[in-house]
């Protein structure tokens, strides 16, 4: 699949966050990494989930399903944590390592 450019050229990239998706989430969305401008302040991972329409369908009403975990700057975080410019926020489907 060929994806369109994910973010318009911006004079201030520090007012954006990097969003990352993995495994089944990445495949469903069709992308794995995007720079996303922080429109409102404060913006949380839960806000981005809605804005980027990461839901599987309308059933969850735009809320992050409990099976999805959030990492901010590569550490687990609560979905409501306010994001700061430059943060890396990742949506992690259920872990199956080991």
């Amino acid at each position, binding site marked *: 699949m060929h994806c369109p450019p994910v973010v318009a050229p911006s004079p201030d990239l520090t007012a954006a966050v990097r969003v990352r998706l*993995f495994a*089944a989430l990445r*495949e469903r969305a069709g992308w794995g990494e995007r720079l996303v401008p922080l429109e409102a302040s404060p913006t949380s991972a839960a806000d981005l989930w809605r804005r980027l329409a990461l839901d599987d369908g309308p059933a969850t009403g735009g809320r992050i399903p409990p099976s999805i975990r959030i990492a901010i700057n*590569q*550490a*687990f975080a609560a979905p409501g944590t306010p994001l700061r410019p430059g943060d890396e926020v990742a949506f992690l489907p*259920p872990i*199956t*390592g*080991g």
Partner: protein
Amino acid sequence: MPTPNPELTIAVQLLEAPFEPLELLAAWQRSLSADSRDSLGAARMAAESHFIGRVRPTTASGAPLEVLELEHYPGMSEAQLRALAEACAARHGAGAVLVAHRVGRIAPGEAIVLVAVQADRRGPALRCVQELLEDLKHHAPFWKREWSGGSGTWVAGNTPL
């Protein structure tokens, strides 16, 4: 927070190619002996426990597995394995922990994970291996996809204990 133990040695390895667990263990033991000669003479810890996990030959639904693909979150996976190992060692008073994990494409029968713990007593060594194995299965960002008959399926959850 448990107090950090300055004597605690944590080794974490993410491996993109097949590895031989016993060779990795031998190198780990040599590195610990070299360390301990500096500070404690020839003393080696009295208890050591290991776990090796290998890729099963069949998928969760019982079909023949061609290959297991292991996706991870580079950076976070190493950091998280280290944090889990440190916390587990601190809880149990273990002295040294090794965690090795394959990523990428892994053939049936190949080792996918190795956990090893040295401690002063058998209880902490055994318990730390067991807990760390559960911890990394649930809290380190790895995702398995099983390839069978040319199509890939993301694994929905961990195998039962």
